[in-house]
């Protein structure tokens, strides 16, 4: 039962992360565009329980920072005034899903102090808030594209498997072509021929389309294999003997099996596709500023001084690690369930 444990942990983690991304406006203390130009590359804000005089407080608080030290991006805490952490406080306006608008945030501190849990970037924008908004692009584009690829793979794979012959040959040659090109190359090449300067929602759809288009090859081959294998099995042959049509066979017997395989493949491919989005945006061909994605946030970390002095700018890439591990765990469990069923 250890496996079930892992499964539920992974599932809960993914649900939490995705829900936080969906409700980014509420969970994030600031808007992704809110800047504090006077404090570039502010390090992660420290939460205190003990103040400068050594007195203990029961409620966590932060201090305001002011530039100090030799370089421009060194900061000292200003012990003059404590800013306690507050919940459900009013701040930047936002909309969730384009349906609800609000200005209450889950947590934060009163202005003029700021609470940057994961530091700030070169324009003084909150890295934590931007990562949540960026997850809307990176995680959702990955999941949607994987769904698209799965549906494409199911369609092509089952057609190839059921009809066989010349149709099968044609379908498989086309998938081979897609698979033959190294993934990032085909991703960029297909991306190259879509418009670059477009609004954020259009860009999101473009990215989903490109990722989905590039990724349908593997599920298609997998589904074809499953369908071909299943066609030889006795219950399918029996149904065929009773005069079942191809459409009926596909719907009643073959699709459920293929669906399982495709779902497993989808769990495997989601982190890869998310990485695809990150790479496109990282290379400047995807989501463009000021709208954040984990990829274009990382692009800032390419600058040498950022890389050496401000480690928190690498956090979007680090965040990919637990997400990938969770999807892997999910895929492992789904895969072993599939094994036991076939």
């Amino acid at each position: 039962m250890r496996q079930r444990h892992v499964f539920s942990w992974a599932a809960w983690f993914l649900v939490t992360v995705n829900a936080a991304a969906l409700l980014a406006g509420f969970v994030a203390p600031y808007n992704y565009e809110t800047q504090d130009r006077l404090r570039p590359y502010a390090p992660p804000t420290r939460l205190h329980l003990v103040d400068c005089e050594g007195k203990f407080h029961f409620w966590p608080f932060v201090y305001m920072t002011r530039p100090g030290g030799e370089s421009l991006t060194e900061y000292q805490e200003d012990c003059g005034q404590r800013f306690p952490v507050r919940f459900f406080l009013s701040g930047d306006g936002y909309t969730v899903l384009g349906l609800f608008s609000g200005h209450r945030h889950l947590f934060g501190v009163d202005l003029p102090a700021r609470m940057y849990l994961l530091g700030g970037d070169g324009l003084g924008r909150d890295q934590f808030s931007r990562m949540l908004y960026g997850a809307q692009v990176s995680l959702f584009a990955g999941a949607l594209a994987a769904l698209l690829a799965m549906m494409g793979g199911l369609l092509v794979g089952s057609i190839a498997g059921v009809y066989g012959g010349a149709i099968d040959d044609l379908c498989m040659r086309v998938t081979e072509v897609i698979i033959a090109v190294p993934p990032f190359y085909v991703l960029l090449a297909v991306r190259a021929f879509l418009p670059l300067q477009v609004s954020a929602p259009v860009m999101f759809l473009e990215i989903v389309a490109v990722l989905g288009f590039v990724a349908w090859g593997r599920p298609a081959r997998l589904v074809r294999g499953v369908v071909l294998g299943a066609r030889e099995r006795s219950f399918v042959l029996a149904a065929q003997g009773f005069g079942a049509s191809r459409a009926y066979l596909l719907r009643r017997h073959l699709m459920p099996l293929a669906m399982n395989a495709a779902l497993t493949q989808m769990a495997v491919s989601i982190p890869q596709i998310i990485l695809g989005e990150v790479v496109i945006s990282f290379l400047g061909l995807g989501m463009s500023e000021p709208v954040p994605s984990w990829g274009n946030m990382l692009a800032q970390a390419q600058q040498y001084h950022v890389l050496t002095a401000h480690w928190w700018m690498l956090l979007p890439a680090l965040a990919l690690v637990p997400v990938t591990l969770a999807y892997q765990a999910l895929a492992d469990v789904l895969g072993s369930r599939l094994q036991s069923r076939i």
Partner: protein
Amino acid sequence: MIRYFGRRLFHAVLVLFGVSLLMFLVQQAAPGDFLSEMRLNPQISPQALHTLRAQYGLDQPLPLRYAHWLSFVARGEFGYSFAYDMPASKLLWPRARNTLLLTVPALLISWLIAVPLGVLAAAQRGTWLGRLFSGGTSFLLAVPDVLLALLALMIALRTGLFPVGGMRSADPSHGRLADLAWHMVLPVGTLVLGSLPVILRHVRAAVSETLSSCYVRAAEGHGLRQLPLLFRHALPAAANPLISLFGISIAFLLSVSLLVETVMSWPGMGPLLLESILARDLFVVLGATMLSTLFPLAGNLIADVLLYGFDPRIRMEP
């Protein structure tokens, strides 16, 4: 034997042809071309643009252009670079050589590490060492390549032991070859680290499967020592799926290499592709994509030769 290789070769050519056709069809859907930026420039007359279009052959219908381009490719060229104003092949081949300079050593190193390590890990399956090992590969697998490349750059910047990018220094102090090798260390290391967990997993899975087969158990029962058992008897039987993985691992390495080259400003195909995409330099994009497909396909052919030598079942095929 000739029929077998003939078939494989024909198949590779067919795939290349398919890639070119696909890329041509996709680019047809693209809005604008290299010259469309010029249209906004009031200093260039519409007549001049028209002649330029005719000169580049952009006014012809798609099938004609494709046929024209194919005839170029058949002669080993990839069309014309608008942005550099030179044949695209002259631009592409040196860049491709630089990319191979990274990927080929990385390919060899990662296979040389992965095979023995994977075999040993398969033998340790079920023990705490084996579990630690599979946990380690899972974790490495989850580390994105972007992070690896950025961390390599960070090491170069922090320690100053390695150059932060490029291929050669302005004044190499230890001879050109040593200088090149010194520049290669970090990018190749990143590539190895990126591809190692993938190959390791496959080696381990393939060898584990043969280890549970009857003949290995019989050999074990006869008292064979473990190392000869693993490497002389189990590994060759597991070689088939691994050799097929060889070509795929080249594709994977090229893919990661694109990223590493861009981050570490290595003058390979990756930065060129990026540049030509932004400049809408159609034929260079096409050429880079075709070349990037050519190398894994060549790897597949090598794998086929190896497989033919290794696996008697294939020699029996009609």
